[in-house]
């Protein structure tokens, strides 16, 4: 059973948060809006209406391609993908077929490289709402720009998939091109899963799992699928080529529709949109807008600022948090402040995103101020502590240096933190020595 290797490829759809839709001037922000209030002849696919591409959406899709180390195509075009579904008002989706905006990229995760097959731009469909026995259509989402990222089937481990998706999610947010909110459906994940006895050989079937709205669920869905498929193969049954859904309560997948017959989308170049030509300078201009990406930031934090890798990772996950960290770093709050001090202030806060630069600054300053210690009270507390912890004192005397730190902790707690730690250690040690001399 363990001889089987999972072979997993990913299709990820990301809705861009441009102001207007992909091919018309309707607002692209459709979430929780009254149905069919953000529509026009174009996104309703009315007779005679024509698409005019959104330049910003094209630029952003290229930007994402660059962030994923893709080659940007100098010539690209839109194509029609013809199929019938009630949420698709034109009878075709404007997508990209054989000349996507960018191809052949990769993302490195923990030393492993996962290849990106292509990044292309298309339009979202409307939404079907099932109410009782009726099905209603809301076209507010129709025509919202959608980037599709397709990976190579390079994944063999569900944990790698999860890490990859987390990284991709962070990158998309870094670029500021999408909220990538899975609850709202602005980032959609579709793993294609199969298992094989030979890692270098693609099996002649694959199972696509849809409707997954968290990275953890992707991992669970893959684990479930891999097990299910291996069980079938062990019984000499070939898993069906199909689309399955994910049931997050039962943590299982279920069959949605069979894909035994490949659907023929009759792709052909969209005659309503002239082909796009991108000159090198144009691509370079977009490239110059590329921010430092999370992995580069993480490495810099570790190498330049000596942060712990875990801390650097946490800080670099959210670009707003990272930006605040770097802003405070530049301010030079006071002397002797290490990057780690600023990092700690941020990391200690639960709600990092609402933390302001000013708050971080103040907190760092406060922590760095020499603490005035009330030595009279300290002496009393030390005596009390030593008295009530004779065993620990004995341990220390026997040479267990760590024991002193336990005592420091108690004293500091009693002093409510209003004592200089170094002073507390010194005083503790000298007091024990004094008592020792007496006895």
């Amino acid at each position, binding site marked *: 059973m363990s001889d089987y290797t999972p072979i997993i490829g990913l299709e990820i759809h990301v809705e861009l948060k441009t102001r207007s839709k992909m091919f018309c001037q309707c607002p692209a922000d459709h979430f929780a809006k009254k149905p069919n209030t953000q529509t*026009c*002849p*174009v996104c309703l*696919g*009315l*007779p*005679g*209406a*024509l*698409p*005019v*591409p959104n330049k910003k959406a094209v630029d952003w899709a290229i930007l994402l391609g660059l962030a994923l180390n893709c080659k940007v195509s100098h010539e690209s075009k839109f194509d*029609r993908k*013809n199929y*019938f579904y*009630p949420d698709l*008002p*034109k*009878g*075709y989706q404007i997508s990209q077929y054989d000349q996507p905006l960018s191809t052949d990229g990769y993302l490195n995760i923990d030393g492993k490289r996962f290849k990106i097959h292509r990044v292309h731009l298309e339009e979202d469909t409307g939404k079907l709402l099932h109410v009782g026995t009726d099905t209603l259509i809301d076209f507010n989402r129709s025509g919202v720009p959608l980037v599709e990222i397709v990976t190579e089937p390079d994944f063999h481990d569900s944990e790698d998939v999860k890490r990859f998706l987390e990284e991709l999610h962070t990158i998309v947010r870094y670029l500021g091109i999408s909220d990538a909110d899975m609850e709202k459906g602005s980032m959609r994940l579709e793993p294609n899963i199969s298992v094989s006895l030979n890692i270098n050989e693609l099996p002649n079937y694959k199972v696509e799992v849809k409707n997954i709205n968290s990275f953890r669920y992707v991992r669970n869905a893959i684990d479930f699928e891999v097990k299910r498929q291996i069980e079938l193969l062990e019984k000499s049954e070939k898993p069906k080529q199909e689309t399955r859904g994910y049931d997050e309560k039962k943590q299982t997948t279920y069959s949605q529709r069979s894909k035994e017959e*490949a659907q*023929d989308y*009759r*792709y*052909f170049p969209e*005659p*309503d*949109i*002239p082909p796009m030509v991108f000159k090198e300078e144009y691509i370079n201009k977009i490239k110059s807008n590329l921010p430092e990406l999370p992995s580069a930031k993480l490495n810099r934090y570790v190498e330049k600022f000596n942060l712990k890798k875990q801390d650097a990772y946490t800080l670099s996950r959210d670009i707003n948090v990272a930006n605040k960290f770097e802003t405070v770093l530049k301010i030079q709050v006071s002397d002797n402040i290490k990057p780690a001090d600023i990092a700690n202030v941020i990391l200690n806060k639960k709600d990092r995103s609402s933390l302001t630069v000013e708050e971080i600054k103040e907190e760092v300053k406060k922590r760095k101020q020499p603490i005035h210690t009330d030595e009279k009270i300290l002496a009393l507390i030390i005596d009390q502590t030593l008295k009530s912890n004779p065993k620990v004192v004995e341990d220390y005397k026997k040479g267990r240096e760590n024991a002193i730190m336990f005592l420091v902790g108690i004293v500091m707690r009693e002093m409510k933190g209003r004592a200089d730690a170094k002073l507390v250690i010194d005083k503790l040690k000298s007091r024990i020595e004094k008592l020792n001399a007496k006895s």
Partner: protein
Amino acid sequence: MKLLGKSLLELKKLLEDKEISNKELRDYFLKRVRKYNPALNSLITVSSEKAHPTGVPLAIKDNFCTKGIRTTASSKVLDNFIPPYESTVTQRLLNHGLSILGKTNLDAWAHGSSTETSDYGPTKNPWDLSRVPGGSSGGSAAAVSAYISPAAIGSETAGSIRGPAAWCGVVGLKPTYSRVSRYGVIAMGSSLDCPGPLTQNIEDAAYLLGIIAGKDLYDATTSSLPAQNYLKELNLKNKLTIGVTDEYFEGVDAETKRMVDKSIAIFKKNGHKIKKIKLLSPQYAISVYTIIQRAEVSSNLGRYDGIRYGNARNYFADEAKRRVMLGTYTLSYGYYDAYYKKAQKVRTLIIEDFKNVFKDVDVIVAPTMPTSAFRLGEFEKYPFFGELMDVLAEPGAVSGIPAISIPIGLDAKNLPVGLQIMGNYFNEQTILSLAYQFEKETNYFGVIKKGFANYKD
């Protein structure tokens, strides 16, 4: 006042000078609609006076979306469709103070060359009611020919303006592809569709083109080259080199040929140089056109899935079904390269062919149609008969160059014959100006006037 035969620009002036009122003018044409439309079936919808009370009324082909006015593309699938928006072409006409008299009949979805495939019945040729007007803009051509409307707007995919203009004895201009916005025109062959005017003279055609041409933010394929004041520059300043090619006379009826030759002699007399040229046989354009247009049709008609617009898919008539099936086949997996892709390659060759020829000549003249108008029912007997009739228009359509058809007389059957002048890309001015000079010289041998005389007030 006697209005019969007044041109669009003349009527406009009468309105501006308050010689007639908007109501008088509209009532005049409504009266003619009532009198002659039942026999001709040129208009299939008359717009309400409330919607368009002022301006010279025009007849608009029923594949242009007109806000608040039923738009069917002559298909019962759209029997109840009232567009909530205005096409760019009609919007620009309205912006210029013109109005919409009504919507004209066409072959359903503009699929055809005779206007017989309309779900609202065929339009009759005003010169002979037993004959077809040509198509697909047959309703528009007949409306102008019988003076039901002073001018009309049509659309051409391959011959749909020029063909009916020739057979009804009026002027029909197909501009360069991308010169005029397609926004709001019910799509047929998206890479070919081209709106244009049908008129009784060149001035009206130049005037209308000046209004409807130019960049449109709602159509990404429109050219950003600015439109010209075509009307102002109608007088030809220099002598032209006119190309004539044998390929465009093959299979052309002898009488038509003779009449075209006579017209060429007039161009020569006016000092233009006639030059023999060689072009690819128009036969190639038929194949290219058939594949590309069917493919685009199969995709464009997908939206009429029965969920919206009232009527279900079984309302599609045979011609649309045939085209959808052929187009679906050629786009299918495994066939795409053999058909669609190959057709696009040949299309590029046809474009190159024209570009080369236009290095040597300013315009090309040829017959518009191989014969004069056919009798009703004749098209139905032969599949692709329409394509064969449009053979002389298809190279121009496939390549996207501008062309104009003008009347050059009546044949022995007392039916109009047309000559077409094809020009280089975006050079509508030259073909209009040459046609204008011809009009001044010949007055189209009285064809237009004779046409009106058959339809007295």
